[in-house]
């Protein structure tokens, strides 16, 4: 990975803001969908697609690309918006989110958008798929394969047993090319994670499962890039980065409110949100 310059960092902050605006516009147009998670993950998606990942929007199926599995498919507005901003498809296609005939299904489906690595939505199944991809690559290219494998998890889906089955296998197989990023935003659909099903001490859990663990501020580009660099330097262990994020980040009336997990802004709320985002950008 190249060095993160101040110039690039400022550029990415601007890009993340544009992606947040796209998310608001998409959700208002769709009339349904998830708001808080996508806004909270905009910085991490920006860092991944505009700095970290080896990928080529003009050749999405490029064999040498890094693989990214989005396990918590419900935050797909940020996924779609980032892909569009990165050049995978035109920005105006974002307005088709959740509509009949759209490639942008309510939860990602690779039959409709062929270059997605997988379909997702039902929680808890993503990490195991990333583990499988990494295992398959190691069979072909050995443990020093240049490919990196990323899996994005929500904190809510750590309730799922399937997730921990993947955690165990990843550690057993010492998958050093696998990096998990947890969107630690502390909310899930019906409330705060620690009320619904406590996850803490979360870092200790992963540590004791033999993963290399880091905790970062998921809105700080230096920390995001630094943590990925450290994860890739780890030998014989998979890595997990617990990214503390603010659900609804950038739109003050949504921030930290679990009520915004699963609903879109109205037209008026959307205008208010866009105004705030544009002011922050200026």
């Amino acid at each position, binding site marked *: 990975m190249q060095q993160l310059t101040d110039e690039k960092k400022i550029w990415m902050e601007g890009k993340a803001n544009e992606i947040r605006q796209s998310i608001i516009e998409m959700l208002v147009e769709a009339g349904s969908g998830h708001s808080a998670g996508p806004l909270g993950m905009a910085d991490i998606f920006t860092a991944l697609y505009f700095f970290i990942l080896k990928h080529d929007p003009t050749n999405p199926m490029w064999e040498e690309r890094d*693989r990214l599995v989005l396990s918590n498919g419900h935050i797909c507005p940020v996924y779609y918006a980032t892909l569009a901003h990165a050049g995978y498809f035109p920005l105006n296609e974002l307005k088709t989110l959740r509509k009949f005939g759209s490639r942008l299904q309510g939860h990602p489906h690779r039959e409709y958008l062929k270059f997605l*690595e*997988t*379909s997702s939505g039902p929680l808890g199944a993503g990490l*195991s*798929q990333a*583990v499988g*991809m990494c295992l398959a*690559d190691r069979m072909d290219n050995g443990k020093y394969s240049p490919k990196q494998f990323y899996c994005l998890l929500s904190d809510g889906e750590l309730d799922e047993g399937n997730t921990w089955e993947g955690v165990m*296998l990843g550690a057993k197989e010492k998958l050093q090319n696998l990096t998990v990023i947890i969107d630690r935003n502390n909310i899930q659909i019906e409330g705060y994670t620690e009320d619904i099903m406590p996850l803490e001490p979360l870092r200790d859990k992963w540590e004791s499962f033999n993963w290399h663990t880091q905790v970062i501020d998921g809105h700080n580009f230096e920390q995001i890039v630094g943590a990925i660099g450290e994860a890739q330097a780890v030998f014989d262990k998979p890595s997990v980065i617990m990214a503390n994020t603010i659900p609804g980040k950038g739109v003050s009336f949504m921030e930290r409110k679990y009520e915004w997990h699963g609903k879109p802004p109205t037209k008026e709320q959307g205008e208010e949100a866009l105004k705030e985002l544009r002011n922050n950008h200026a």
Partner: protein
Amino acid sequence: MLNQNLKLNTKLFDEDVEQIPIRRGFGEGLVLAADADKNVVGLCADLNESSQMYLFAKKYPLRFVQVGVAEQNLVTVASGMAAMGKIPFTSSYAMFSPGRNWEQIRTTIAYNDRPVKIIGSHAGVSVGSDGGTHQAIEDIALMRVLPNMIVLSPCDAIEAKKATIEAAKINKPVYIRLTREKTPLITTEETPFEIGKGEILFAPPMTAQVGIIATGALVHKAIIAAQNFSQKGISVKVLNISSVRPLDFEAIINLAKEAGAIVSVEEHQVVGGLGSAIAEVLVQNYPVPMELIGIHDKFGQSGTPAELIEYYGMGVSHIEKAVERVLNRKNDPTPSR
């Protein structure tokens, strides 16, 4: 009256007919599939011996993944491997895979259209003494409802071997249903096998009066029943359906047209299984009287395989009674029951 165009095992009516567990054919077939294609990999959930995947794991340890007692992981890891170009075979008991991990199979394999092969061993009540918790009698229903999924239910070990080799070649998700017990060999190495094709195994020289359509380990009993009828001058044909999905509509409709009465035979709940699949075809194309042999709305229990097959009404005598019932209904269509 065996259809010798198919080069079937001529000893299949003998007392000392060779018997091999159907799952053994999978174990041998997987090694052959792996010899032929280096992308074939195997994953198992701590049932390597039972599912016979150990034959593959021994020969190709670097292409084998042991995931532990974790069937949800089994299929989702396999989906990821398929995404990288592998041809993953997963093995466990049918009760746990696809029993426990159905949604993962639906979303990450069928919905994704990934060519993962799901091997469910120990299907049916013939699992025996382990009891009802371990006897999958719902798995055909679970798998045949999924778009993209191919569902194979071989009738003997040789057919299971061929099904495994063909499953590796087809770029689609496949479920293969296997049973535990020794089962008489019906086919030979020379018998043709094609996904999506049913074959008439037993055909008396005259027009059929009843057609039996069977799948899996009970096909042998269906042939015995048909042979018994032929000795009484009643013509009963037996159609083997080893491919439940895609289903050979043409063979089923043709047999219904010829015989005018059908009996389905399967070691599975009659709800959602092969009998239901046949009924769906016939009711839309060529309705005829039909009887369904299988498990009727019950769970299994402990016992010997023979005791359980009898108790749940799937023995030769039950198949014969069903043939008589459906023949009566055909000859006297006024509902008297």
